[in-house]
């Protein structure tokens, strides 16, 4: 890649520049800052869209009474039951039980404590879910708009 071809397309990079290796006019390699590349952004946005879609589906299930609010927070943090079990120290089959609304609604604050600490939520925040998914990317885009 030549230095003048280093892409400077900025959409999702939040002002962070990365280093690309590129050749100068004499063919010597130099370190060149890149503001971003559209190709990367497409792939990145696609990954976030997949999370957003998962969240929309899980919200439907929660509203239909088939899943507990824990399922929303789990997916929002890009986890499945296995990873959540590892992080919370609660066994996987227990985590899966906690994803059922009937079980979840009876759980005490002390049982939920590992989830609260992990997701940095209060008990009231854990028990409710928003109407629309809230993904980290959307938060960044709000910040970008303010800027």
């Amino acid at each position: 890649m030549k230095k003048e071809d280093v892409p400077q397309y900025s959409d999702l990079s939040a002002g962070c520049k990365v280093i690309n290796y590129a050749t100068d006019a004499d063919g010597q390699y130099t370190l060149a800052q890149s503001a971003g590349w559209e190709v990367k952004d497409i792939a990145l946005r696609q990954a976030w869209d997949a999370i957003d879609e998962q969240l929309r589906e899980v919200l439907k299930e929660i509203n239909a009474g088939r899943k507990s609010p824990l399922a929303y927070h789990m997916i929002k943090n890009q986890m499945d039951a296995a990873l959540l079990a590892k992080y919370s120290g609660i066994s996987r089959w227990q985590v899966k039980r906690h994803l059922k609304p009937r079980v979840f609604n009876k759980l005490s604050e002390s049982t939920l404590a590992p989830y609260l600490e992990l997701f940095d939520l209060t008990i009231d925040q854990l028990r409710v879910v928003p109407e629309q998914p809230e993904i980290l990317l959307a938060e960044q885009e709000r910040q970008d708009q303010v800027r």
Partner: protein
Amino acid sequence: MKIDFPHQQFAHCESGVTTNLLNYHGFPCSEALVFGIGAGLFFGYVPFIKLNFLPLTTFRTAPGSIFAKATKRLGIEVKREKFRDPLAAEKKLDELLAAGRPVGAQTGVFWLPFFPPAYRFHFNGHNLVVIGKEGDDYLISDPIFEEPVRCPAADLRKARFAKGALAPKGKIYYVEKMAEQFDVPGAVTAGIKEVCRGMLKTPVPMAGVRGIRLLARQLEKWPAKLGDKQTLLYLGHVIRMQEEIGTGGGGFRFIYAAFLQEAAEILKNDELLDLSNHCTEIGDLWRDFALLASRVCKGRATITDSFADLADLLRQCATEEQLLFTRLNATICR
């Protein structure tokens, strides 16, 4: 307290961390040199190991190996530690900082607040250098970023004990004792030989040039096997592994070309300059692949029209890389 640390921004976390640490300890070197001596270049496609539910695709060797191999080949004594208890891990880190020693650490990316939200995924092979502590904040030299950053202790603790694939288990590493003198040509030769071995002579079909061909074969089957939606996710994942922050572009092929340019001077071997150019062309091929793949992901090109072309581009990469590393091996072993 803050250690006077020469922070420089680089393309890749682990080779950048190693470079900054070696510069601090009095061995001036470039990131490309460290990457080459540490034999960072590789290719692997392992469909049965899943990362974020997608098949593992990698353009580099396992996390931790660049630091380990580069320091070993330069005769530098290092220390590595893992922990079970997060508090013990933090105490040890604080002790080392108090003694004035910058400390490398493996972390997950998801919990690091200084990363732009768009990049926060569960990837646990990230590396950074802790260079100080002020109150409850750690001061961090993360080579991906232009300037040193701050990170609350609680967040760094979570990041050091991230769970899942490649869990760092609080891993820290630091330079114990520098060598008296450095055999740079010997280290460069050893690094090149290892990369050639990894790319050409692997016993498994998932690695090296054979891994690229495997990916080409499997990629052709994705649309029929997975359906359109999942196919595009798989394709996007390959782009991200190839171009996401940290590869310097073209799945590390450009940084390796920069290394070969430096190696030509160190080993007084002009053929390496030719090979460096070849490696740049291969990097450009990988960029072409990513560009076409992204057009398919975005819906600007269709799966039916483009998948044969994508597989062809991969096969071209494989053919060219086989040629490059065969020639490289020959000139180094001569």
